[in-house]
């Protein structure tokens, strides 16, 4: 990978192993969010704003610690707070960092009509190119996670870039850098999967979270942002994380079969009238009174 980080393979005069050697650098990046160790400090929210150059803004108080009800075009990253009481009356705070999931099969990209407005890099990052965006918001309809948001002033849609500008320079995303508890991890998808599975197994074995698991939804081809959840069977609990996210069937129908049926029908219509003209030609006018 041309833009991959410089990775040391061998070190002169060095006793012992080379740190990081043989780790996967076949760069298919992934962010791993271990919600079980998130403390809801929102350092990631601040780091995201700072890196992307967006201003700090008023928060919206609705009786939780959540900064505002939803992400915004200039607020890519939001910790969702949920107060949860389980069957045995145990109370817990569920805190989930919400942002673009960087789907392997991105519904936004499928739905977008504008040439070059959404790109998917080989490393898995799905990025919006605002200069090509026309503001139609088909991406909003295509996204199963409610992520893309319109800037009403410029009519351009924005979302988390997974800090493609940092990752391209070999840095980790800003949110990862800011996380104080280490609940955010960044690396190759394979490495993050291993780490996530290890952590989930640890939770199942050593804690009361017997349903702990990894959220990497297959409905969108897997995602380049994964979660470790205490309860993988109830992702909705975490501020509405969909259990089985899918690109809406209407979008699939519209973008594939219907488009081709329409294309063929339109081309057929034009061809049909041309053939008709060649076969039958124009109508002839009859003299008045002649049948």
């Amino acid at each position: 990978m041309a833009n991959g980080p410089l990775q040391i393979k061998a070190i002169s005069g060095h006793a012992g192993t080379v740190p990081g050697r043989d780790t996967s650098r076949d760069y298919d990046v992934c962010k791993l969010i271990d919600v079980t160790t998130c403390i809801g400090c929102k350092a990631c929210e601040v780091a995201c704003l700072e890196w992307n150059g967006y201003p700090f803004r008023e928060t919206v108080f609705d009786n939780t610690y959540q900064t505002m009800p939803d992400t915004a075009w200039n607020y890519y990253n939001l910790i969702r707070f949920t107060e949860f009481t389980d069957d045995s009356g145990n109370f817990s705070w569920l805190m989930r960092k919400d942002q673009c999931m960087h789907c392997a099969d991105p519904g936004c990209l499928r739905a977008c009509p504008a040439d070059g407005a959404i790109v998917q890099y080989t490393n898995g990052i799905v990025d919006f190119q605002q200069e090509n965006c026309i503001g139609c918001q088909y991406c909003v309809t295509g996204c199963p996670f409610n992520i893309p948001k319109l800037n009403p002033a410029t009519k351009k849609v924005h979302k988390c870039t997974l800090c493609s500008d940092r990752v391209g320079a070999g840095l980790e995303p800003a949110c990862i850098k800011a996380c104080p508890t280490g609940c955010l991890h960044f690396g190759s998808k394979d490495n993050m999967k291993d780490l996530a599975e290890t952590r989930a197994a640890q939770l199942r074995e050593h804690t009361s979270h017997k349903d702990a698991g990894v959220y990497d939804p297959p409905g969108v081809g897997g995602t380049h942002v994964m979660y470790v959840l205490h309860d993988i069977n109830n992702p909705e609990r975490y501020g509405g994380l969909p259990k089985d996210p899918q690109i809406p069937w209407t979008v699939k129908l519209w973008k594939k079969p219907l488009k081709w049926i329409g294309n063929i029908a339109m081309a057929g219509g034009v061809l049909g009238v041309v053939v008709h003209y060649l076969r039958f030609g124009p109508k002839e006018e009859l003299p008045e009174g002649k049948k």
Partner: protein
Amino acid sequence: MSTAALPHTPHAGQIQRYTFGERLMHWTTGLTYLYCLCTGLAFYTPYLYWLAYMLGGGPTTRFWHPIVGVIFMVGTIWMSSMWRRDMEITADDKRWLDNTEAYITNDEAHTPPADRFNGGQKLFYWLMLYGAILLLISGVVMWFPEYIPRQYAWLRQTAILLHEIAALATIGGFIIHVYMGVFMVPRSMTAITTGYVTRAWAWTHHRLWYFRVTGKNGQP
């Protein structure tokens, strides 16, 4: 007629088929539809996205498409106010529609006579009217998707599908309409631009109408 001394009368001996208002209305709907067609096709398929570049770029196209669409709708309402009665499907039209094949194959002897508008034109009118209503309703949703709350996401999804299906249906009618107006029925372009047709044209293509406007009852 010894009319050598009379000044030139425009359209002398011709029949007025469309008033100025009707022509203005027709071209309002026609040209706005054409714009929406070209810009809509740009969004419809990547193979035609170049149309958006030709028409001022993607954002410009996205800005104007719905506005021109509303003008198209206004034109369609205007059309409806002028032609609704003319467009009602009568027993004569049913006979005409049953013999569409004769009309298509230019077999005039077996084409039942038509009134001011033939059965095909009337079907096209109703197709465009209902198509325009569907396009407008779904189009408003697509115009301002940012005001649709997430729990009504199905509304946005349905609107896009409806918009596409309605557009395709009207495109089918539009292809036939333009082909017939420009190529298949000579001098119908003159009719819709100048408003006048010759008596022979009226006799050939709209015989029942010819009888009505010339006051001749079944006899030429």
